């Protein structure tokens, strides 16, 4: 369980997050949505202790993120950031195997190699395994980064806009892989999405943020309503239900 309690955050004097309280149960896919600048990335980076907490507290499985040794936490939670740059002259396989670092401090056992191979296969990277990261396309690189987060093998997975650069096919594949990880392996996935229809199709729960606050929190059918969309994104769009799931026709 991820427990976020009364978390506020500011850059100098500018408030970024205001008194966020949110509990995410173990197992399942939670989508974090909201307009640009809502504070989604900031919240995720606080949960993953990439930035120091200023106010409030955050626990993952009872471990306070600001007081737990980094190594221990890295075996519980993995994060994919929105803007990851990777040093050159590293192969895809090397990058993905960095995901195993928290477990063996760089020494890869046979089991680690198997996990890396599985992550490569899962994201269709087996053919690219020997390529240098800087020679990949944007979407291929994104898949390699997701595979690295997967290879970390943690119960909690925080993904900040992992669908960036992915084509339709791989976007759906990734969402399905996350769904499967939640359903079959009991993983907890918190994912920032801009494609709200992906959230509707694959997430159990949608949390909508705006201006550093949580505006709405519920099942997709509660969040994807014309009124709610207007409140959160400031846009009116028709919502249709297909196969029992709401979809927003925001292109119209």
């Amino acid at each position: 369980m991820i427990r976020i309690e009364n978390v506020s955050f500011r850059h100098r004097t500018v408030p970024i997050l205001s008194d966020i309280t949110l509990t995410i149960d173990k197992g399942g896919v939670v989508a974090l949505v909201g307009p640009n600048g809502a504070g989604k990335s900031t919240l995720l980076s606080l949960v993953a202790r990439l930035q120091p907490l200023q106010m409030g507290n955050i626990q993952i499985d009872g471990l306070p993120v600001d007081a737990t040794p980094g190594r221990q936490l890295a075996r519980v939670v993995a994060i994919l950031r929105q803007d990851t740059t990777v040093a050159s002259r590293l192969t895809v396989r090397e990058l993905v195997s960095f995901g195993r670092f928290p477990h063996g401090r760089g020494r890869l056992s046979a089991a680690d190699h198997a996990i890396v191979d599985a992550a490569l296969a899962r994201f269709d990277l087996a053919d690219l395994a020997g390529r240098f990261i800087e020679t990949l396309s944007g979407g291929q690189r994104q898949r390699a980064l997701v595979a690295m987060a997967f290879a970390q093998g943690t119960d909690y997975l925080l993904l900040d806009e992992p669908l960036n650069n992915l084509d339709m096919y791989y976007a759906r594949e990734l969402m399905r892989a996350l769904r499967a990880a939640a359903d079959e392996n009991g993983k907890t996935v918190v994912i920032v999405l801009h494609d709200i229809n992906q959230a509707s199709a694959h997430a159990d729960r949608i949390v909508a943020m705006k201006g550093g606050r949580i505006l709405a929190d519920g099942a997709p059918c509660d969040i994807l309503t014309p009124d709610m969309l207007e409140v959160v994104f400031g846009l009116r769009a028709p919502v249709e239900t297909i196969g029992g799931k709401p979809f927003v026709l925001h292109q119209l």
Partner: protein
Amino acid sequence: MADRRLLALAAAALLSALAFLLIGLKGNIAFVLELRLLKLAALMQVGVAIAISTVIFQTVTGNRILTPSVMGLDALYLFGQMLMVFLLGGVGYVSLDPQVKFAVEVMVLMVLASGLLLPMLKRRLDMGLMLLAGVVFGVLFRSLYSLLARLIDPNDFAVAQTASFANFNAVRTDLLAFAAVVTVLAAVLAWRARHVLDVVSLGPEAATGLGVNWAASVTGLLLLVSALVAVSTALVGPVAFFGLLVAALAERLVVTRRHARLLPAAALTGITVLVGGQTLFQHGFGSATALGVVIEFFGGLVFLLLLVLGSRS
């Protein structure tokens, strides 16, 4: 492939060492050999120290153009040395045991360097800013050095190291034993940190996500770099671009940024260039003192090339 190239590099390093020892051996062979062995040990140390410190520094800063000397660390070392002369007076300084003196200088550099650079490395700054800071630091330390040099007694000044660029022909063999301890220790620590270095190269956020304590790791690595810079500066004087040359060469030779390969490759390249170059200049091109200038010339070219190519991290 990387492994075979590493072996080839090792062979090249070995060959240059043998050539350095054996070419033109005549007269009192035992005596000449002993002299050459001492010098070889010093050159190897300098090569290894500069290579390793540069690779680590580049990894920590996420930047292939920066080196400890571009950031003014060797100037800082000379400043620390001058500060000691200033505080102790020439007589006091000279009467100190050279090993003790060197140990204190190493520690002074470690403290000064981490005090200055750590705040900058908490978050990675972009290259332009780091370069600028490096230039400013370099000028600052050099000016402070000359200021102190002017303040002290001219007689005292003579005891401080006055070389303004490296002289690979006149190495300080009196510091050799102590420097060797520092170099070997630092090399072992760097080797043990090779996996952490791989992760550190991903940057503070990704490294933290993988469970690396960024502040602690960077502090440790920076102390290591300072110790190595102190060794090489003490033995031969400041070098500007040698580290850059060696790191860039090594990375292209083994075609990887994994430190398990890169660190040994850089160390071996450093030895080959330095020892091989010195052999060439001693026996081939006449002037034994020219190596430093030539290395700096090519290193400077590499620096410009990397800068022009806009080689980011």
